[in-house]
């Protein structure tokens, strides 16, 4: 047994594999290791003329392409269906997923994705529906959108909801545009947006996209916005405050009512990043916190799948003062039917306009509504309570081993810094990679930026106590291990399809696509 595995066994009080080093070090002839199978690129499996679909020959016709026919081949590889299925199945097996284990990425809210929601989103009446069909043929879709909006209005307490934004950052853009439109309409253009230092990177990026200057607001020693510093920055040039609540340190902004009053006192507006709404759904309504605009991530709180990076959906709830500026399209009610308003006219004359093609992420709306209806008013409140309970349970379990950044209870996620790794030679990154070898997806690393070497843990409500205990036991064991064997951490991960990847080299000379050998040769000459 190596020092590495022995110490871990002792720390966990149980035996691991007798000879892990043999597994790691003996090469195989294929490069495969049991269930970990090497898979070349699609382009390296090409055979000319092979095809994974059978299409009829096009009927005879006289080309009307106007002489713009494509010349030469595209360069796409030919594979049969079994090869394609095997290729993507093998690739899938190189991924970690919430289906395979706890995925405690703070601020990302990786909760279980119910399969009922997938089934319903694929009903032909939703999936096989064109956005430009006549109004009489889409009444069910408009009812769905309206019903989702109703749930979101009740949950937020806010009177208007814009559903077209495609993701959280797009929702931020929608909200900030509406704020700027409202300020312009009242003849009061302003130039600055206050953004706490702990904010998601999307917040300052969004405000900049809207043509605003960013003015950062420091945190206080309790991990919340420094109210005095905020007040010192508030003047009649401030258009809005963009605040995340619960914030990215996993804490509720306990002075939020004072913050809202101070913002409103100088005529500014209060934007809230609702990415962490899952911590308070059913227990707190954003309207009661003095918020003027708030986006919700349906792919976080309401469990539409993250899909390896999207698609998402980022509806925005508005206070009455901003509702007139909501983006197109709007839904209006007629006699016994609903209709879309697609132009900035009539009731929508003050709309900021269109933010994406068509009407929004309907496929995500179906999933989110199915999730809400499944939970109900009672279940959604339980979601918030269990999410907060699970995070606090991990906090309590880990408090003796890791260094909690801000003492006291947390909301849906708990923030640690790398103080517990001081003088060990182990970094936050090394610690995360060691967790990978233990079969866990790491927590969020190095975010938020307000603490050193951040480790942000969000278990979500869909983890059992047993899963939390297993995760906590492992983190505790690794924290003990870090004090004696930095080298073991530097070598991690060892059991993944690839070991640590060279990100610096990737960025220095970006290789963003495959090229045929001949083209590569040409480029080299």
């Amino acid at each position: 047994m190596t020092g590495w595995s022995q110490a871990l066994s002792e720390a966990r009080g149980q035996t691991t594999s007798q000879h892990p080093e043999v597994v790691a070090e003996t090469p195989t002839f294929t490069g495969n290791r049991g269930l970990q199978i090497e898979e070349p690129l699609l382009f390296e499996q090409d055979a000319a003329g092979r095809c994974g679909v059978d299409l009829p020959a096009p009927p005879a016709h006289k080309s009307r392409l106007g002489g713009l026919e494509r010349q030469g081949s595209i360069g796409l590889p030919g594979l049969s269906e079994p090869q394609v299925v095997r290729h993507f199945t093998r690739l899938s097996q190189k991924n970690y997923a919430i289906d395979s284990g706890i995925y405690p990425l703070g601020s990302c809210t990786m909760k279980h994705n119910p399969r009922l929601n997938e089934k319903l989103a694929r009903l032909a009446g939703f999936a096989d529906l064109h956005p430009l069909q006549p109004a009489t043929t889409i009444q069910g879709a408009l009812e769905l959108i309206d019903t989702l909006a109703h749930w979101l209005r009740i949950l937020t307490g806010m009177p208007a909801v814009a559903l077209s934004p495609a993701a959280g950052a797009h929702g931020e853009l929608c909200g900030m545009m509406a704020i700027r439109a409202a300020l312009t309409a009242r003849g009061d253009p302003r130039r600055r947006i206050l953004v706490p230092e702990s904010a998601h990177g999307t917040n300052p990026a969004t405000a900049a996209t809207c043509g605003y200057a960013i003015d950062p607001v420091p945190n206080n020693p309790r991990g919340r916005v420094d109210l005095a510093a905020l007040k010192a920055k508030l003047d009649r040039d401030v258009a809005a405050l963009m605040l995340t609540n619960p914030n990215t340190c996993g804490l509720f902004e306990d002075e939020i009512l004072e913050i809202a009053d101070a913002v409103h006192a100088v005529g500014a507006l209060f934007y809230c990043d609702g990415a962490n709404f899952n911590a308070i759904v059913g227990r707190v309504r954003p309207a009661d916190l003095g918020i003027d605009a708030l986006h919700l991530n349906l792919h976080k709180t309401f469990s539409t799948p993250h899909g390896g990076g999207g698609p998402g959906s980022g509806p925005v709830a508005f206070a009455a003062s901003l509702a007139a500026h909501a983006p197109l399209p709007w839904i209006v009610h007629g006699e016994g039917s609903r209709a879309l308003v697609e132009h900035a006219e009539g009731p929508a004359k003050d709309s900021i306009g269109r933010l994406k093609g068509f009407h929004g992420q309907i496929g995500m709306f179906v999933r989110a509504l199915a999730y809400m209806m499944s939970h109900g008013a009672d279940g959604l409140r339980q979601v918030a309570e269990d999410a907060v309970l699970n995070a606090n349970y991990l906090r309590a379990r880990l408090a003796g081993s890791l260094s909690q950044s801000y003492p006291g209870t947390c909301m849906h996620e708990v923030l640690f810094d790398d103080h517990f790794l001081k003088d060990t030679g182990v970094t936050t990154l090394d610690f995360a990679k060691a967790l990978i070898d233990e079969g866990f997806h790491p927590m969020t690393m190095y975010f938020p930026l307000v603490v050193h070497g951040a480790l942000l843990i969000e278990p979500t409500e869909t983890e059992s106590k047993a899963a939390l205990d297993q995760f906590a036991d492992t983190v505790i064991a690794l924290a003990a291990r870090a004090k004696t064997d930095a080298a073991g951490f530097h070598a991690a991960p060892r059991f993944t399809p690839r070991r640590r990847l060279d990100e610096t080299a990737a960025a220095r000379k970006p290789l963003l696509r495959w090229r045929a050998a001949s083209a590569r040769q040409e480029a080299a000459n």
Partner: protein
Amino acid sequence: MRYLPLTGADRRDMLAAIGARSIDDLFADVPQAARLDGLLDLPLAQGELEVERALSRMAAKNVAAGSAPFFIGGGAYRHYVPAAVDHLIQRGEFLTSYTPYQPELAQGTLQSLFEFQTQVALLTGMEVANASLYDGATSCAEAVAMAHRVTRRGTAVLSGALHPHYREVCETYAQFSGLTVAALDPLPGRVEDLAARIDGDTACVVVQNPDFFGQLRDWSALGARCREAGALLVAVVNEIVSLGAVKPPGSMGADIVAGEGQSLGNALNFGGPHLGLFAAREQHVRQMPGRLAGQTVDADGRRGWVLTLSAREQHIRREKATSNICTNSGLCALAFAIHLALLGEAGMTRLARLNHATACNLADRLEAIPGVSIVNDSFFNEFTVRLPTPAAPIVDELAEFGVLGGVPLSRFYPGRDDLADLLLVAATETTTDDDIGQFAHALGEVLR
């Protein structure tokens, strides 16, 4: 509640471990005035069967595209998606994973994105492509913003034949970013003099091929003119299947391609989620928005993939980022990649020819109806028809006949009397001869 694993006993034990008396202790930071004590006025939890019943009832109030002769396009196209695509994207390892921030746990997603980027680059004839944006319209707005960063100029000239939603999204973004958007008049079938609109402040000229009215255009001369003038040519493609048959924008001198990828692998979904495609020349890669998968090696020297050039992105650069985009359309990109892998060179070119042949058949049948003419002199799988009467009521009457017969242009250009009689119709490989026969018959009847 079927999705919540904690039992009452667990909750009591965990509260005890935390040292809290009740769950309310954990919400003590919420100001008293903002605490909700009771339940909100919403229905209570329901079982799968009840939820399925309720949502199925809503779905049944819609007329699914596949249930009627169907001829609607206008930026979203109904294609047949092979069964393997949906099976594979529903594998939990793809469906329920996050953005690949830990590359050692996400080589599957990263390799498939690298393959997707390569496919998009090949189809568009461009050097590099990103890992997707939200949809074609937002890709177009991002392209305009990128052209501004590259050229440091303040005006975008938009073809009048650009999809009106794309134009509108560019205009919405521009209102706030300070760019000027100069959109030309929509003139279906007519040639625009875009070159004449280029001046020293032109960051880019945005064109579309096939254009919104279905006409095919060779933008090569405009591309050359842009280059001389120091402006970028942004080419929009919103029917990506066309690139199986039509000259790609990369060989017309496009600097940026903003596209909609829904046609491959993805359902209509009533307009979303769709798939924003974005490709560019390699020299501008550091000004591109969105995520990029790149090739590298691991500690043992083996080939692998990571997200790269993240110094452009909001989580590093914050207000100096090239875009605020974070979540994109990852799973839609995977569906695109799988569908295109199944098609390959032979399938993609045949699929495109099949679409064109079907549309030619449709054009022949519609042209034969008295009073009906085709506006375009070229097209791929969609074209504009001139009717002898306003198109909007005709489309509603066709729906009464059970035919989803295209989109009246008046839906996009209200108040434009000169466009009121025009109807945009599309045909794909899913369109049968019988569908075309029913459409032609119904249109003849309605116009009689």
